[in-house]
């Protein structure tokens, strides 16, 4: 069990049976008053965030979380299927679990799947992925304004803003944390 004084940013605890991560933490103590441990918490399954204030004497159960390296296989009506490359165990995650990550998932990509009490709840993508452009309008000639961009659709169906020189078939490096174009890898 954790005590209030163990609380800090990044700590994972269980509240009402759900795993939460502390995303922001503030210790306050009004003059002569009791210590207050103010937390911003994010539900690691639903992404729901909330504010809670705890006091000395409160106790917390650590969240039993584990990350496993898995390979993305395919998606269908049931959800997104992943396989442990060592044990060949397969798991299925829902749309809600995957969230924005679906924009960057490629077949056979290796990702970290996060398990809470043996149930997969989310995935962590590599920070950068390489994806092919499947559709991009030609850049308008004569438009030389620096920083000008146009939309391009990637093989995952995701549309991002890219520089004007990008063409169909180019391979792009994308930052999965911001969802933004980084550079052209291959034309």
């Amino acid at each position, binding site marked *: 069990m954790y005590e209030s*004084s163990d609380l800090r940013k990044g700590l994972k605890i269980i509240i009402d049976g759900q795993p939460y991560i502390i995303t922001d933490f503030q*210790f306050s*103590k009004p003059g*002569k*008053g*009791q210590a207050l441990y*103010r937390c911003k918490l994010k539900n690691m399954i639903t992404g729901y965030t909330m504010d809670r204030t705890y006091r*000395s004497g409160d106790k917390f159960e650590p969240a039993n979380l584990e990350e496993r390296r898995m390979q993305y296989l395919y998606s269908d009506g049931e959800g997104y299927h992943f396989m442990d490359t060592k044990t060949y165990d397969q798991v299925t995650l829902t749309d809600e679990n995957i969230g924005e990550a679906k924009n960057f998932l490629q077949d056979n990509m290796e990702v970290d799947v996060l398990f809470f009490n043996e149930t997969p709840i989310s995935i962590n993508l590599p920070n950068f992925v390489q994806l092919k452009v499947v559709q991009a309008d030609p850049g308008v000639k004569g438009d030389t304004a620096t920083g000008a961009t146009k939309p391009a659709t990637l093989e995952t169906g995701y549309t991002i803003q890219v520089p004007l020189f990008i063409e169909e078939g180019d391979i792009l490096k994308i930052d999965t944390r911001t969802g933004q174009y980084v550079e052209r890898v291959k034309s």
Partner: protein
Amino acid sequence: MLTIRSWFYQHNFIEIQVPCSAKEAIPEANIDLFKAEGGRYLLPSPELHLKPHLSLCIEAFFHIGPAFRKNEKGQIHSPEFTILEWYRAEADYTVLMKDCLDMLSTISAAFRNNTCFTSALTDWSLEKGAYIFTIEDAFTQYAHWNPVELHDERKFEQDLVTKIEPALPADLPVILKDFPSWASSLSKIKESDQRVCERFELYFQGVELANGFTELVNTEEQQKRFQKENIKRVKQGLEPIDLPKTFLTALNQCPPSAGIALGIDRLLMLLVGAKDISQVILPLF
């Protein structure tokens, strides 16, 4: 530090050096204490040693030194910090409020002239003034209830931190005064309004800088309050603290007086515009 000391010497204060540990301690519900070898306490403030000096006919004195509070670590909390305390005999808390603002103005001017730091505090001077609110007014306005009428410690502390402190004006120092009588601690109940005590806190930019009050100089009453604090300590899982006999005995011999404590590290934070106390504490701490 020289500016702070000079201010006190100019105002005829005597500097008193006291140990930072003691055999006894003041029982306070919400302060966890470090214990040193032989069961001595590392003191959370020099009050225990300082206040009895009032009974020795010293009119005004101050002390700057280390203080220790276990389990206090945050943006504006450190388990060891530097505390400034001063006392005045034959004075009440209004005199301390004037002291605070006058000293703050002197320090900010000196800092402005001698360093390359600028901050909201170095921009401030006494002519710009300060806000003074009663707790009753501040809570009625920003939290929509009145802790002076309704005794709810949990709600009071929570709202003070989440509703009042963030809502305080940031351009000038703020004094919150007349705390509910149930939050009197070691302060005197106001004669003209028994619902409140003569206690105030000084804020700048939402940071609590100092806590001062007209001293309770009544041994019996203080002893009762300490016993209540010990009951609260036990409820919170802290060990009770033996009543500090020497301190209590001296109280009845003290003249009417006022005393205050100010956090030097927080003052420094505000002077240089730091957001976290660790920025003004030496890295090896």
